[in-house]
């Protein structure tokens, strides 16, 4: 199907099903129950799942296939956001030209940075990309203020020209982002008994873009080009000896992943027309590294899982406060209850970063393949157990 092998096609179908049904899947608890705070099915969060999914898929094309660890990818996301907002300010509130521009600008930007950075490998490459990203961040904050609006961040205002659209709507407010009239923030609530499912236009736009991005990444992984990238990762010296120049391939991978980041940035700005320099800071680059590693480097589905997991934790874990903890442990005697709350307290709420750091360290140390490898190991162990049972069953039979 669509030029994919059977396994890849079913993986794609699973991803399509998951993203399309996400408003149901992420809302398992009735909205009036105590568990409702673990629902992640609201548009804002779901959009972030898929947007960061795109970002991580793109990062994985570079890091997963070629092994080049970039610590500056957030710069491309930031550039994408800025160009999208500029498009909203100058052209119209239609998201299509904005996203196209942000992909192109991020591509050009990554071509420039990649061309320079890829002269070096290993740790030097990481530090070069880090230096470039920090430079862009510092410039966006200071000198480029006319372009980026400095600390306040770039926003759409009432007196923007918007050549193809209107500067202000009839009732004098700022027009909202749309796709040929379909407003991004409009949503439809479906109420089934105690459950409320929200279907947001913005989410579905992002989800469709993510599915397209995912499909493209599968094709890249399975293409001769992807094979070449893997060859670079496994042994670059040998590749040189066979007379191949790795540079164009790595540069292409770098630009592709930069464009993915730009796409994510453009989508982010389309959902909320605002762009700030903090999106380019190196901690933001670190976040996408965390996502990719946590999910599984070099696997197809891994980055999406990682992005979803981190964003879920960020929003849901950080909401657990002491009150919630007390209700969880209320069945215990008071002393033990307070003790349990005190033990868990540093890891949730504002301290969720601590949990994230610990999980990340454990994953890097014991499970270099991330969640995907974990899943595979469990599956393997289960299969082996089945086999063992089959093999052993005759011997465990009592002799008659």
């Amino acid at each position: 199907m669509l030029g994919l092998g059977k396994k890849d096609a079913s993986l794609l179908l699973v991803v399509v099903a998951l993203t399309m049904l996400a408003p149901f899947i992420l809302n398992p608890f009735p909205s009036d129950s105590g568990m409702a705070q673990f629902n992640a099915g609201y548009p804002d969060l779901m959009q972030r799942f898929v947007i960061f999914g795109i970002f991580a898929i793109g990062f994985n094309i570079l890091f997963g296939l070629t092994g080049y660890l970039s610590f500056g990818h957030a710069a491309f996301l930031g550039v994408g956001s800025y160009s999208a907002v500029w498009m909203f300010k100058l052209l119209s509130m239609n998201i299509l030209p904005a996203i196209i521009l942000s992909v192109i600008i991020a591509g050009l930007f990554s071509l420039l940075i990649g061309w320079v950075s890829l002269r070096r490998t290993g740790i030097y490459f990481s530090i070069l990309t880090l230096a470039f990203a920090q430079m862009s961040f510092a410039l966006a904050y200071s000198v480029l203020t006319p372009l980026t609006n400095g600390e306040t961040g770039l926003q759409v205002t009432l007196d923007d020209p918007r050549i193809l659209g209107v500067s202000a709507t009839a009732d004098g407010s700022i027009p909202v982002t749309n796709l040929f009239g379909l407003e991004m923030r409009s949503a439809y609530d479906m109420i089934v008994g105690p459950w409320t499912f929200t279907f947001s236009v913005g989410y579905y736009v992002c989800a469709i873009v993510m599915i397209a991005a995912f499909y493209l990444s599968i094709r890249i992984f399975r293409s001769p080009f992807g094979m070449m990238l893997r060859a670079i990762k496994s042994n670059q010296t040998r590749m040189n000896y066979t007379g191949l120049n790795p540079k164009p391939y790595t540069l292409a991978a770098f630009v592709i992943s930069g464009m993915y980041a730009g796409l994510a940035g453009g989508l982010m700005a389309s959902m909320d027309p605002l762009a700030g320099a903090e999106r380019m800071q190196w901690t933001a680059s670190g976040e996408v590294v965390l996502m990719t590693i946590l999910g599984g480097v070099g696997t197809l589905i891994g980055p999406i899982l990682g992005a979803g997991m981190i964003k879920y934790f960020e929003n849901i874990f950080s909401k657990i406060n002491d009150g919630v903890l007390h209700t969880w442990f209320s069945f215990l005697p008071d002393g033990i209850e307070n003790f349990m709350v005190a033990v868990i307290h540093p890891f949730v709420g504002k301290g969720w970063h601590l949990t994230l750091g610990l999980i990340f360290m454990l994953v890097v140390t014991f499970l270099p393949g991330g969640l995907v490898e974990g899943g595979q190991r469990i599956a393997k162990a289960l299969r082996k157990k089945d086999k063992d049972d089959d093999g052993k069953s005759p011997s465990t039979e009592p002799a008659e």
Partner: protein
Amino acid sequence: MDVFLTQILNGLDKGSAYALIALGLTLIFGTLGVVNFAHGALFMIGAFCSVFLQRLLNLSYETVDPTKTDFLGNPAVIKTPYVESWFGPEMGAAIIDWSVPLAVLFAIPIMIAIGFIMERGLIKHFYKREHADQILVTFGLAIVLQEVIKAVYGANPIQTPAPDALSGVAVLAEGVVYPVWRIVYFFFSVVVIGAVFAFLQFTTFGMVVRAGMADRETVGLLGIDIDKRFTLMFGLAAAVAGLAGVMYGPINAPNYHMGMDFLVLSFVVVVVGGMGSLPGAVAAGFLLGILESFASMTAVTDIIPGINQIIIYLVAIIILLVRPRGLMGRKGVME
């Protein structure tokens, strides 16, 4: 001329922090071959050692003084720190006043212990893995350490003032006024750097470590347990970073993310100086500090706006492209 002198002082001052952190990073990289992204966190922990000591010294007991009343009319509660009651009021107050310099002594064993635990507990297992894995696991560790400090001390910066005697300004020349503590910081860093170099140069231990940095295998073949010594060097590097942090407290109030802010810059410094070269790291630290402070002069920023923000990165990019092994890097080391 005055402006010139002030900028040089500023540069030396910034440079001394860069040089100290870069020195520790290079010690770890040169001996163990590990790229330590948690080094900034060690700097931050050092700064919080002095916060801890300050809190410890300020532990006090309360007495009620019936002769005085506070503004609500209740009998006044007077807090007396324990140190004042033990050493007498004058001596006690002096000890509290000098808590930052005292924290230097206090931080050394703690930082060495932390470095030791880090190396034995975590980094040891990553020698044979890729540099990318080392970067990732130490990055994770940096997040964890930072969050632990945040959980204990909160997210706001905590003031650790310098002793009164050293907190004023000094008039160095006609029209050149400079904070005393920053000058102290510079001399302190020179002393620490000198001590580290002397240790490596003039002791047998240092000689073995240098030999191990040059050729680990041969030293091993001579029957010396080089790993044990390298572990100690990790502790030493942690102590250097920690001391840099302790003394930095009065310049910039310690907060939990100060390490991350310094980390990126000190990596750049290490790369410019040459991966694995100790003199390179120190020289590059001071050099970049001075460059940065000159770039932030108004005369310069008028010509090229924003240059002060990016000069260090710009220099690093140029150096990496034209002289990949850095200013003083040895040939063939991570080139």
